[in-house]
């Protein structure tokens, strides 16, 4: 289905189109959320709310402001980040995440082992250490670039250029997975 067709169908509240959207994007969008929220039950709860929100707010999606997946991923991401900032969550999760991460850094490839797709593992090994670091922070830990900069005392510009370099490598290799 073409993106325009998909959007038209969503705006018409067509059940089949919503089903198609779910089948095509749920895995990726759930991944976006799972990156920020490790607990599967909570992640699914957030995903439920975020997906419903996407369907309900589709009229406020503006094609001229970016493509559909970008928008949906941002809705999911924001929902997940909002969740981590809520009172009940911050107690149990956020500190936990950082601890895990520090452990992950020292144990070097523990996050890599968590990756289930063999293709992605391949992909990750194409990155150098600095690039892998930002990808892990952003993709696996749900950090924003400014959080990385603050947390690890890396200048913001450096974080940006590492993200860029890492995504470039992913872009070049994405056809292989």
């Amino acid at each position, binding site marked *: 289905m073409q993106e325009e067709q998909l959007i038209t169908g969503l705006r018409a509240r067509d059940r089949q189109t919503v089903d198609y959207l779910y089948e095509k994007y749920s895995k990726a969008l759930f991944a976006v959320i799972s990156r920020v929220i490790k607990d599967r039950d909570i992640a699914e709860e957030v995903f*439920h709310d975020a997906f419903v929100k996407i369907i309900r707010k589709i009229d406020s999606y503006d094609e001229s402001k970016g493509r559909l997946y970008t928008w949906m*991923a941002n809705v999911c991401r924001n929902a997940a980040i909002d969740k981590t900032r809520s009172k009940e969550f911050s107690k149990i999760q956020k500190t936990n995440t950082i601890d895990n991460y520090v452990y992950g850094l020292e144990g070097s490839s523990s996050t890599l082992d968590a990756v289930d797709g063999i293709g992605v593992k391949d992909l990750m090994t194409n990155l150098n250490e600095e690039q892998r670091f930002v990808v892990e922070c952003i993709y696996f830990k749900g950090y924003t670039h400014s959080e990385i900069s603050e947390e690890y005392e890396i200048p913001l510009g450096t974080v940006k250029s590492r993200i860029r370099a890492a995504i470039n490598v992913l872009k070049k290799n994405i056809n292989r997975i």
Partner: protein
Amino acid sequence: MDIQSYIASGKLELFVLGELSDREREEVLQLSKQYPEIKKELDEIEEAMFAFDNELGVKPSDEVKDKIFDTLSQELDAPKVTKEVTSTPTKEVALQPWKSFAVAASIVALLAIGAAVYYAVRFYDVENRFTSLLEERNVLSQELEINKARFEETGDQLQTLLSNNYERIPMSGESFELQKDALVDVFWDKASHEVFVSVNNLSSLEEEKDYQLWAIGDDGPVGIGIVKPGEKLKLQQMEAAVSAGAFAITIEPKGGSEAPTLENLVVIGEVA
């Protein structure tokens, strides 16, 4: 502006990651409208991230999907039901004849395609046969022309032989070493001086040699033409011979010689 260094700044990645301020977002959008390279880069980043997320993620459990569609069921199904109620009766009436017409049209189309293919194949076949018949006919008519010419020639020769007073002088190679079995007949009309030869048996020669017929009279041998060894039992007309006591054939260089090379004498026959 330098688009490449803008792309290289990493801003586009942050845009897709949703990490830009509103002001920066506006800037990226503005530029992506202005520069196709930026738009393309944005699309590629998005595709890469989607593929990455998609590869990385696990499917949320089926209960989540059920729950989502439960939550949305009112919104998604409600408009559809009213739509169906209003449109069903008219649709059914309109749909049925159209459907059968479509079926009929499809069948007709299929039959037409079948017929077209069948006749195309037949046409092709017939055309092929027609072409080969034409060719055969051409060959036959050419053969007929050749046979007609031959027949006329033979008729003429027979006529000359019968109407005039031809004498047959057989020449043989029996007494020579060259071709013992050589046998050639000369037909000579003493009154009209016309001479024909008919080859019975004569070996073929190398390219640069010819058989030459000699009429041997009181003034010695006179060359009266080249004999073709291939044309057997056919009358070959030679030059006229006024007087001759014998006829002979020698092998000469191509085109014949002024005087016969006697050691190359093949056949000889005396006039009776």
